[in-house]
């Protein structure tokens, strides 16, 4: 179990860790800001029928990509393998895997049933302990959902090795951008967390901004200029039916997010040049939570629904504040150099991610909910709009390049600041929001 503890420490990543020699050969050395990823092997998944061949290859490939993509694991290429697994139930020849230093081994098999369903089985082994890590599991689903099944296997593997919930079987809603900078066209789009399976949820006739998932992932709030004025809409992800939020005419609304109940919406409403924070419940009328002449926007509920973090320039510059869900007792929490915006409460409740602007650079950072232990994770010409992975370990955000040809893209980074990656998508993309784990 040493392997578990060490990875858990690495994941926590909040302190410069110095983990030195471990007992036995299971050893991950973590030095300040650098982790030696755990070597693992995904043995080719066995195809139990001819039709299963391509699924077996693709599923094994996606599992490898998922795990390696975390930065916590390093995939050993199959060209290095000594053993060929020819039977899913045969004993594992541990020495062959030890010889190539595969500390974790994933084996699997895939079948396509007569009614065109995919059956995916997998096992996970701690090679140097010569023991399975948890029970073998089987997933059954539509063949069209083969990537989701690969993600579910990956979530299991990640979870068994790290002791944390995974985040692979999840999606991202974002804004796909096309066209030149002064005539950008924008559409709400949906993709797997890794950028695959892009679908569009709106057309490009109106500017759309900042889509946000409901806690169950089946609905999305976003801002659209459909009427010529910014207004909040709720969209059903499956039916693509949408409805406008019921707010006073002649007001502009934006920056919506769901409360944890999936019913309450917290948002900004701008009237007469003054922007304040409101909540709206189904069938109700907007409840005003802030009453200052300054800008109050970008609200985000705590996971227990008791508090709201938001940004305000009431002090003269953009800073972060936390107030009770009824608007009472606002307290400033950001006091560092520069300006702070777009706060988002982590799904674990422990941290707040934010955008920071300082000395001409933009950063994504995290801090405790009382503002302490601020850490900046990124820096660039323009980074903004963090969103949390369902397990609170990874942050996705928008990074935009400078200049006339500048364009935004989605990036992700660990909360330790490691493993910065571009989410592979065709074309420009902005304003990501990560879904919860899919059911």
């Amino acid at each position, binding site marked *: 179990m040493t392997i578990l503890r060490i990875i858990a420490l690495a994941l926590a990543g909040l302190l410069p860790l110095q983990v030195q020699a471990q007992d036995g050969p299971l050893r991950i050395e973590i030095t300040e800001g650098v982790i030696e990823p755990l070597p693992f092997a995904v043995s080719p998944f066995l195809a139990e029928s001819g039709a299963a061949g391509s699924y077996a290859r693709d599923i094994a490939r996606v599992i490898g990509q998922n795990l390696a993509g975390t930065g916590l694991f390093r995939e050993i290429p199959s060209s290095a393998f000594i053993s060929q697994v020819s039977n899913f139930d045969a004993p594992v020849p541990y020495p062959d895997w030890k010889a190539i230093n595969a500390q974790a081994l994933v084996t699997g098999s895939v079948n396509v049933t007569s009614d065109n369903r995919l059956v995916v089985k997998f096992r996970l082994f701690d090679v140097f302990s010569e023991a399975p890590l948890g029970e073998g599991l089987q997933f059954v689903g539509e063949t069209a959902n083969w990537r989701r099944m690969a993600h579910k296997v990956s979530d299991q593997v990640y979870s068994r090795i790290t002791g944390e919930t995974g985040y692979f079987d999840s999606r991202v809603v974002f804004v796909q951008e096309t066209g030149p900078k002064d005539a950008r066209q924008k559409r709400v789009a949906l993709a797997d967390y890794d950028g695959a399976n892009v679908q569009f949820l709106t057309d490009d006739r109106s500017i759309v901004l900042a889509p946000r998932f409901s806690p169950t992932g089946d609905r999305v709030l976003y801002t659209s200029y459909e009427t010529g004025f*910014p207004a909040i809409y709720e969209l059903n992800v499956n039916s693509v039916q949408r409805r406008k939020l019921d707010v006073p005419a002649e007001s502009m609304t934006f920056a919506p997010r769901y409360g944890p109940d999936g019913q309450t919406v917290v948002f900004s409403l701008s009237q007469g040049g003054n922007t304040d924070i409101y909540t709206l419940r189904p069938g109700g009328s907007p409840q005003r939570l802030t009453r200052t002449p300054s800008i109050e926007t970008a609200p985000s509920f705590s996971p227990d629904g008791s508090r709201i973090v938001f940004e305000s320039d009431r002090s003269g510059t953009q800073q972060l504040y936390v107030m009770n869900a009824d608007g009472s007792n606002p307290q400033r929490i950001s006091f560092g150099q520069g300006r702070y915006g777009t706060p988002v409460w982590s799904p674990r409740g422990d941290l707040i991610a934010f955008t920071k602007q300082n000395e001409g650079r933009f950063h994504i950072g995290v801090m405790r909910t009382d503002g302490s232990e601020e850490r900046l994770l990124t820096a660039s010409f323009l980074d903004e709009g963090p969103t949390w992975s369902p397990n609170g370990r990874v942050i996705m955000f928008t990074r935009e390049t400078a200049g006339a040809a500048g364009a935004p893209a989605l990036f992700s980074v660990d909360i330790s600041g490691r493993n910065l990656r571009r989410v592979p998508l065709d074309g420009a993309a902005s304003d990501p929001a990560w879904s919860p784990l899919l059911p």
Partner: protein
Amino acid sequence: MRHATKALLLLASAALAACSSTGADRFGGGSGGPGSGIGSGSISDPTSVAYFQQTVGDRVLFVVDTSTLTPAAQETLRGQAQFMMANADYTAIIEGHADERGTREYNLALGARRAASVQEFLVSQGVAANRLRTVTYGKERPIEICSTEACYSQNRRAVTVLGAGLGS
């Protein structure tokens, strides 16, 4: 002319959008009446949209992260107010914009502030409040696209976009 063309396109799209929303009819769309034939009118016609855009000046610029009207902006807006009062059939949508050096939500709020400060000034000069409406675009619609102050200063703007008249 480039600015003018863009403003017209923006107005045209705003007008189209307004057609489908209740209560926004007087802010565009329709036919007949001054200003509805957008782009019509010669710059030499002091009642024309072209004259308003190019001779009066349809936009004012702002200092970074402010919505305060500079003396130059106030001068332009006095001209806009005189034009609006002399041409009482026009309505206007005031668009507030921000440069790209800010977060999306804050820039929306900042654009709303800028549009409102223009609206308040025009009203203070005698333009009826019900002829004016504001909209913020935040950093969504830059008119200049470089990433230097030369462009940012042009993008931190409020543009008064004339529309079809009341009751048209």
